[in-house]
């Protein structure tokens, strides 16, 4: 990128942010054209209809089956995809004994009291406390250690827990709801105009949110799931390992400093989460067992051999995985990953530019961001287009 390009970018960003700044011709032209669409109609409130008496709310629970199915599928996935005990065994895909660090069913790992954010939230008491309302779908949950009835409020700082026979739907303010499956433990950390935040200590849930991006967040031991406007299933095993599967929109998995960029998981994709290493490499849900095994091994230890093993399973419809692989691959193998991306049109322009290619090989953040932005239309495309792209 030349200095002139950088200046043009800076001028555009400045004008986008502040319409009083010096106009850039391209954006000004768009404003002039799109300004024709401006008139939003006036409201004549005198013509609003008369309200009828309130009727009893009828709720459908379409997510119970989804939550239960998601819990079963995700639990099976976690059990089937335990990290291999021996690095070489993963590369050779040899069968092996169960990992020695597999959690014991008899003595589950302690429930973490701190969240991914490692903060303590004082429990709030009293009728005026901010809270989410919940309703039991079956059984009875416990709230702050006490068995609760058919419905109630989860106050700020409070815990809600379901046993093997209970399931709950939790309203997330007025922006959506979360279906909590049996065997789950969840805490309300924040609810205000800035953000609504939960912590999933263990168990599984299905979230459906209709709100601006980043308003709704769920902390897990290994990563923060940031809603970008979507529906998703999220599960955390007692040892803190987790799995996110997105069914609409997209979710960002934030791992703090463990990755150069947050992981993006769009509709139709999923991502494993490790409590120590954070989110792994996202993959389309249709990926083969071979791809998943290779990526699980790579996520455990991203060395040269595992990078090559993962690359061997990926094709031109795996740009989501390849771009995230490039961001954390060892320096000596980034060229190989980039060469796999280069034939794909959005990457070709960047990869053919010597400076951009050098920046990508060096892991320069700004260029990695540009590469992601180039591919995002593919990942977020309509369901019809997604069949074309991946």
């Amino acid at each position, binding site marked *: 990128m030349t200095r002139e390009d950088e200046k043009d970018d800076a001028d555009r960003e400045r004008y986008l942010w502040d319409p009083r700044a010096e106009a850039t011709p391209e954006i000004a032209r768009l404003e002039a054209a799109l300004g024709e*669409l401006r008139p939003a109609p006036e409201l004549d409130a005198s013509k609003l209809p008369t309200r009828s008496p309130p009727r009893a709310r009828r709720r459908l629970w379409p997510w119970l089956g989804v939550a239960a199915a998601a819990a079963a599928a995700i639990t099976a996935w976690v059990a089937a995809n335990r990290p291999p005990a021996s690095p070489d065994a993963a590369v050779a895909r040899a069968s092996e004994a169960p990992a020695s660090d597999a959690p014991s069913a008899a003595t589950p790992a302690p429930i973490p009291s701190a969240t991914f954010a490692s903060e303590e939230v004082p429990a709030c008491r009293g009728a005026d406390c901010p809270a989410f309302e919940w309703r039991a779908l079956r059984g009875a949950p416990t709230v702050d250690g006490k068995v609760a009835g058919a419905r109630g409020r989860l106050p700020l700082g409070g815990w809600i827990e379901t046993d093997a026979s209970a399931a709950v739907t939790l309203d997330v303010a007025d922006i959506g709801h979360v279906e909590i499956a049996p065997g789950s433990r969840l805490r309300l950390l924040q609810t205000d105009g800035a953000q609504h935040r939960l912590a999933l200590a263990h168990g599984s849930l299905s979230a459906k949110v209709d709100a601006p*991006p980043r308003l709704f967040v769920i902390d897990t031991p290994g990563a923060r799931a940031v809603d970008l406007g979507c529906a998703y299933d999220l599960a955390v095993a007692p040892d803190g390992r987790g799995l996110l599967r997105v069914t609409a929109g997209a979710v960002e998995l934030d791992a703090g400093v463990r990755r150069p960029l947050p992981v993006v998981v769009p509709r139709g994709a999923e991502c494993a989460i490790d409590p120590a290493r954070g989110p792994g490499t996202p993959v389309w849900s249709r990926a083969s067992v071979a791809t998943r095994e290779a990526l699980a091994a790579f996520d455990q230890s991203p060395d040269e051999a595992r990078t090559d093993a993962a690359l061997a399973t990926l094709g031109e419809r795996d740009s989501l995985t390849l771009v995230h692989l490039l961001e954390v691959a060892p320096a000596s193998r980034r060229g190989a990953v980039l060469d796999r991306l280069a034939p794909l049109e959005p990457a070709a322009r960047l990869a053919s530019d010597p400076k951009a290619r050098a920046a990508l090989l060096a892991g320069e953040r700004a260029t990695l961001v540009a590469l992601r932005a180039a591919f995002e239309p593919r990942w977020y495309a309509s369901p019809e287009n997604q069949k074309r792209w991946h």
Partner: protein
Amino acid sequence: MTRIETVEPRLDELVRRAVEGDRAAFERLYARTRLAVHAAILARVAWREANDVMQETYVSAWLKLPELREPAAFPGWVLAIARRAAGAHARGHRERAEAAAPPAIAPVPTLEAREALAAIQRLPDAYRETLLLRLVHGLSGPEIAELTGLAPESVRVNLCRGMKLLRAALDGGDA
């Protein structure tokens, strides 16, 4: 001359009054939220249908307002209604047979405007509404943040990334 100072009531107070039937209070709620709602609708439906969906959204909000548990959540709540209404309208539009287009009751926008809107509507969800608030309604980044409840940094990212994708699309790129 006596200066009369008026203080705009708080949002939750306006909602309470509107729940009790105060239509003037609802007009004020409309004034505060209409730009964000218009952008949310324009991001999803054809330009000629946006006004109908706006009306449908606010009539629905008026009728359902007593069900809103947190008055302060009105902006996000009415936006959610708008997005659902726009989505349903867009799905219904695809399913209906393409009869002759109804006569436009407003001037037809230029081809450039229609192409730019179509390109924005093909962008990822995260960018569409923010871009429309900036490019259609001329709002600044801080104004968009206040209107939508997004963090200013998120607005900045949405504007910059969205604009890059829009440029690529209008230049004959991927979108």
